[in-house]
């Protein structure tokens, strides 16, 4: 059923009884509310702590709503099998499983021309209903390791002998179990999420954890353990080493995209975004567009 799951949400393709409405910019301003979709349980980007919404995406969405003069309403989105599913469910078609609710804006959508222009087997744009814009963060892979058990990570080859923790069904899992003909698969340990992989490192089950840089920075920040170090290794044969994270709106809603873009650029230039990232112990590199 794996392949089924990939396309699962296409379930709703033919069969919506209630058509979800895309709000245009004027309607959004008149309603005084910006509805923003953020991923659920995805620290440090968007998560809940003691019942309070937290995370860089949450704070940035708040700052953007404020700049537009409206209040923020968050839509917590469980991640689908692929981003295409999330965009469909929250930006252009909605899903009966989420009460047909559409967001005006979705955070953490890559700013990647190849992806945005991707076509299906019939030559149709796969994400033609969506405008992806406003890069606000660079993303890359990162390994953190415990210096008590591992001196240094010269290359990923050390994980032939040192156990490493990854989130189940994640890119680091695909990567470490397949690279070099599966040589590292035996020492790759799977956990439900990055926090659990870090807990396993603390417990001595694994010597390192691989995840996205933001996730690693946050866990290292939270652990406050001087023996935890950030590796500088390369990731040979990794499809994409570095990418940019931005936002998405419906393609009929470019006016909102322009307004958000303008607000975002101001926040980046005045250092407000960097400050938000610092709340979570995250490094911040200004994306290329603003340099």
């Amino acid at each position, binding site marked *: 059923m794996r392949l089924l799951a990939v396309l699962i949400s296409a379930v709703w393709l033919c069969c919506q009884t209630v058509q979800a409405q895309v709000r245009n910019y004027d309607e959004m301003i008149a309603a005084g509310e910006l509805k923003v979709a953020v991923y659920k349980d995805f620290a440090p980007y968007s998560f809940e702590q003691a019942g309070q919404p937290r995370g860089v995406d949450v704070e940035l969405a708040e700052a953007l709503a404020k700049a537009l003069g409206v209040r923020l309403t968050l839509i917590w989105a469980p991640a689908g099998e*692929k981003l295409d599913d999330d965009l469909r469910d929250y930006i252009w078609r909605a899903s009966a499983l989420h009460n047909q609710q559409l967001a005006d804006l979705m955070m953490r959508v890559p700013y990647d021309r190849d992806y945005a222009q991707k076509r299906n*087997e019939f030559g149709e744009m796969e994400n033609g209903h969506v405008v992806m814009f406003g890069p606000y963060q660079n993303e890359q892979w990162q390994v953190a390791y415990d210096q008590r058990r591992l001196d240094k990570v010269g290359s990923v080859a050390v994980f032939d002998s040192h156990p490493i923790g990854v989130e189940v069904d994640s890119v680091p899992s695909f990567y470490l179990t397949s690279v070099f003909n599966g040589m590292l698969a035996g020492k790759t340990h799977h956990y439900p999420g990055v926090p659990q992989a870090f807990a396993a490192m603390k417990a001595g089950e694994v010597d390192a954890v691989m995840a996205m840089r933001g996730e690693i920075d946050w866990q290292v920040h939270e652990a406050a353990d001087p023996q935890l170090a950030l590796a500088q290794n390369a990731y040979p044969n990794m499809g994409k080493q570095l990418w940019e994270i931005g936002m998405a709106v419906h393609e009929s809603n470019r006016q909102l995209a322009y307004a958000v873009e303008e607000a975002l650029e101001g926040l980046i230039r005045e250092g407000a975004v960097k400050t938000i990232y610092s709340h979570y112990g995250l490094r911040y590199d200004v994306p290329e567009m603003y340099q």
Partner: protein
Amino acid sequence: MTQPARRQPFVLSLLLSAMLLSGQALAAVSDQDILQDPKNPEQIVTNGLGVQGQRYSPLDILNVDNVKELRPAWAFSFGGEKQRGQQAQPMIKDGVMYMTGSYSRVFAVDARTGKKLWQYDARLPDDIRPCCDVINRGVALYGDLVFFGTLDAKLVALNKDTGKVVWSKQVADHKEGYSISAAPLVINGKLITGVAGGEFGVVGKISAYDPKNGDLLWVRPTVEGHMGYVYKDGKAIENGISGGEAGKTWPGDLWKTGGAAPWLGGYYDPETNLLLFGTGNPAPWNSHLRPGDNLYSSSRLALNPDDGTIKWHFQSTPHDGWDYDGVNELVSFNYTEGGKEIKAAATADRNGFFYVLDRTNGKFIRGFPFVDKITWATGLDKDGRPIYNEASRPGAPGSDPKGSSVFVAPAFLGAKNWMPMAYNRDTGLFYVPSNEWGMDIWNEGIAYKKGAAFLGAGFTIKPLNEDYIGVLRAIDPITGKEVWRHKNYAPLWGGVLTTKGNLVFTGTPEGFLQAFNAKTGEKVWEFQTGSGVLGSPVTWEMDGEQYVSVLSGWGGAVPLWGGEVAKRIKDFNQGGMLWTFKLPKDLVAKH
């Protein structure tokens, strides 16, 4: 009883109390009722018309000669806006019909009039993750309770008269991706269910509960390396690791998240006292990440119903790289060969092969293709293991150049999917709802998941023939010969029923419930139900007349697909209707 003050004559009250007593005795479904189900045509208290799942009715009031007089008696709408795939098989007990609808709903309907007696709507959380539409495949009956599984992976017990919840139990955490769509079954006083959700990196399991109160009795993980448990007085007692130990057929720790979900439930064979369940594909999907057989994924398992111990297994697709779930039903049947009675079981796998196994030990007796085109394997060896065609295994994403593609048949939706086949004891044939389709799988460019970039794979399903995908086949399990076939333009997705009246019933996505001559395959009757038929038809006797019922409502997994298959089904409307037909008494003898 509108005048309670009036004294009743003694005889009348005696009669009344006798009726009430017998009414109660009738009302409770017992273990005996369940085991005898195929022999009592006035009720249907098992999914499969008998625990073996043969879907054979001994009724012959309705037969191939008079079936043209079969006509609608009543119809019942599930109502609401929740018109999605309807895949349940109705149950009938004491003139009441029980069934599930899409979105985890249960209905009880007067079998004589179609009047609704009650409806139960499960309250579903926002974050359910059903794999393949919001369908459900039916209820189980036991005592005075009606059981079903929900999309958020709960077992719910309802009072059969009121529809009120008697107990509800979380079988698995829906937040991890588990759900339940199959009908549970009750065997020897135990309520047994599988789970769906293997694609989310969870581990499949089969669990048994006390039907009275929902107490967990045993649990058996379906992936090698996981401990099974029996529960005594609320305490978990270890009952052996599935497969003995971890890591024999899996690399690294991938067995911890191995999938193999038994999402289609199972059946039971009283002669060997075995539960027969199938398991889904292994995780992760990319087979290059998990060299080895990956037990017990894509397998059939025989379990002891008392404690969930695995007695034998048969793996139809070891090291599955094509999403050929091994969940399809294993139907017990006996046949005679060389003067000896063989206790066999047959299954028509997603992978395109039909297997006949010795159900006493799981040994392979014979296997043969039941669809016209199989490219992933060139055949089966003497133990039933596939002889792979490695050129048909999808490459590791990222390893081949972008755009490189392989064509594989059958498609991952299977030569036969969930829809149950039927076995006719008179003809000795299996009636198999099959589909002729293949798939292109290719490496595509960049994809993203939850903010992370990776190289993805794309795929599309392709019909193999211009004029049909679905093929209802009559297959001789002894010779491997196809006795007849009936083609259908759209893919078949509904269950099959066969009867002593030399009839085979099944539905089509085009909306027809159809009847065929079981011996010849001639279509002898059809009725347009107004939406696609994905349910499993049943037949039973009431007041001396033979009835047929089926759910109508298009949906399920097929409409998920774009590409060429979508063109064949895009005009089919949703539905949610229970149709009941009967052969009026005065027309039986006419033919």
